[in-house]
């Protein structure tokens, strides 16, 4: 597309781009608002941050008639929150590591498992394929609470309860990845496969040589999305990990009280970074697409 616009770049296009730009800017501001708020507030003193929270809570309890308002400019810019997160209270650092311990294996595992399965479900014909896949989808759409009790019992039987693997293993085998990749692999033209078969390549080679290179973008997006999903996971650790020292950061950040608010903001900033970095790293795959598609 870019190239084409390059060829016949006229006033109309310029205007269009300008419109695009402004629109995107507007949307972006809307989206960035909370982050901005969080970052600015993370530089407030403990008490100052707590005040906002108390104000809200008391407002929702109806003890006040004060109007709430966003406070972007701290009265006293301090890094005390970061200081206490980094130096004084290592438990938040440990929580961060717990998050990583839980998330990384899931991401890696799921990518491996999902690509294999997706290949099968999309490119290989075998009995009950679509029915199985149906079940995949439906089970995936079940809310968490439904299968919770049997899950709990099962994990207990397997002796995984209270271990990281109680969260990691189900995470790895979540059907989301399969579903996503399958959808993308479907869109890879059959001709490639046929060509490969004619060249006498085995199924694994087909998978490795032809399909895999073409759904880089999909895999990147999978990695990002899975990471995000599990990075924000709250319910499962809360239930399957009895030991609070194993809780990930997301749990702490999902329920906060007034005196921890300042800390939470600081933690939140740290919490955001990995996801953003990973996104930035994989981002170009998303748009890169298939350049070599024409050449054969």
């Amino acid at each position, binding site marked *: 597309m870019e190239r084409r616009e390059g060829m016949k770049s006229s006033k109309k296009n310029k205007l269009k781009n300008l419109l695009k730009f402004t629109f995107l800017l507007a949307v972006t501001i809307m989206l960035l608002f909370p982050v901005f708020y969080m970052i600015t507030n993370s530089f407030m003193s403990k008490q100052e941050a*707590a*005040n906002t929270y*108390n*104000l809200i809570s*008391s407002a929702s*309890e*109806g*003890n*006040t*008639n*004060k109007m709430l308002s966003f406070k972007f400019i701290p009265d006293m810019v301090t890094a005390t929150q970061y200081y206490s997160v980094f130096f004084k209270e290592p438990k938040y650092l*440990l929580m961060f*590591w*717990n998050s*990583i*311990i839980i998330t*990384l294996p899931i991401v890696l595992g799921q990518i491996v498992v999902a690509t294999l399965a997706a290949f099968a479900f999309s490119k290989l014909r075998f009995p009950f394929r679509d029915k199985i896949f149906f079940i995949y989808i439906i089970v995936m759409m079940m809310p968490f609470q439904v299968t919770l*009790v049997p899950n*709990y*019992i099962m994990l*207990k039987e397997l002796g995984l*309860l*209270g271990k*990281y693997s109680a969260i990691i293993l189900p995470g790895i085998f979540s059907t989301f990845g399969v579903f996503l990749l399958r959808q993308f692999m479907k869109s890879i033209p059959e001709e490639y496969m046929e060509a490969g078969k004619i060249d006498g390549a085995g199924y694994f080679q087909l998978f490795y040589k032809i399909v895999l290179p073409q759904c880089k973008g999909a895999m990147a997006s999978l990695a990002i999305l899975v990471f995000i999903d599990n990075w924000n996971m709250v319910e499962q650790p*809360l*239930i399957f990990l*009895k*030991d609070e*020292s*194993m809780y990930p950061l997301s749990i702490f950040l999902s329920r906060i009280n*007034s005196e921890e608010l300042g800390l939470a903001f600081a933690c939140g900033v740290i919490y955001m970074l990995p996801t953003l970095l990973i996104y930035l790293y994989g981002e170009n795959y998303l748009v890169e697409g298939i350049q070599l598609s024409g050449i054969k």
Partner: protein
Amino acid sequence: MKYKYKSLFIFLLLISLISISSCNANKKVEKSETNRKEITIYILCSKVASRYSFALGSYDGVQVNPVYFDDNLEKLQNRLNLELMVGEGPDVVCTTDDRTTDIVKSVYKLASSNTLIDLNPFMNADKKYKEADYNKIIMNSGIYNAKRFFIPRLYAVPALITTKEKLDVNDINISGNRWSWEDFLNTCKNFMITRKDKRQALIFDYEGKLLIDLIANSKTQFIDYSSKVTKFNTRDFISLLKDYKDYIYPVTMTDTESNENALLADDNLAVMRNIQETGDPLTYMALDGYLGMMDGNANQDQKNSEAYILPSYGNGDIYGLPREMFGITSRCKYKQAAYDFIQNLVKSTNINIGHSPIAGVAVYKPLFNLSLEAAAGKVPLTDIGMHPNRALNGNEKIFFGIVPEVSDFRMNDETVNEMITSSVDKYIKGSITAEQAANEIDRKAKLFLNE
């Protein structure tokens, strides 16, 4: 260069993962399935344990051992829920910890969840059990759908506590310890008129439970679990709300208002200031017969304490709020032992929590009478399990003196309470009318019942 980075990165990560997972590993507190003969009970905080301590013995070889959740209510509730659902959890369930905390939010939902067993067979089999010994009305609060799921240990009667001096100083005179609704309203009105300038609070509404208890204490039972009927959207309830907003709320001060952190609206602030000047509100609410709460407050001299049973809306009856109801879970291995344990608790003379004050009055009549005598000073405090060095304070004396035979019970349900308070807050803020509030509460309660 690039590879150096990569390898370093991976190396670091590996180290981190290993080190951290190991550092967590050594703190595993996995409670393995012991096949010792034992029954467990979950207790919120170990301080309360003294209340159970005497009973935590062994019952024909079955050891009772408590699991403490050092004051982490949320943790306790989550774990209790989950474990009961997956057929684990404690053998004996206690609905409340003390007056202020309900471990089980709504008792009858628990009863209807098939996780508890029917206690009637045990009672019938029990030779020592004499129905006359128990307060029948309160005992029946444990029955749901013709099955007895709970045995209550205590019941509480909401009462207003103050001291004679305070009443005299502010020339409030109340005839007798039993108020009619009208007396109560009139007192509030007069107070409002006389004190409008001074902006003082007549009632210290501890934890904002006043309205809840007024509702609980009213003639019509607004919510019926077994028949899934709610009567919140009735004229009674609406007028009750109106009375509350117009006369009672203006003269009350909740403890959130007395908490400095809470940002107060100006008029509340005025109340607040005044209270800080005068030391404390003129009267304290002491709810659910939790009379010792005054220990915490400024009013230290209990000599001329006065207790007034909270007026009942509609008629002069008194309603008891069952506390500390004990049930046995269906997964319990040693049900008989569990039953014995509960009976022992209920009959035990130890109705209060060591230093902290009693959470209610005993359902077991002999014990109730005993505490009456203790209040009258006929028997030593230790006989009702009070800490010897803690004098039975005036409130309890009076309270025991005036606590009457209750005519019915009202079950406290946190879930419904939350609905009521949230809607009433809006009503008081003026964003909705009383009718709307009543309607909202009614619909939510219906939702809740029909779930």
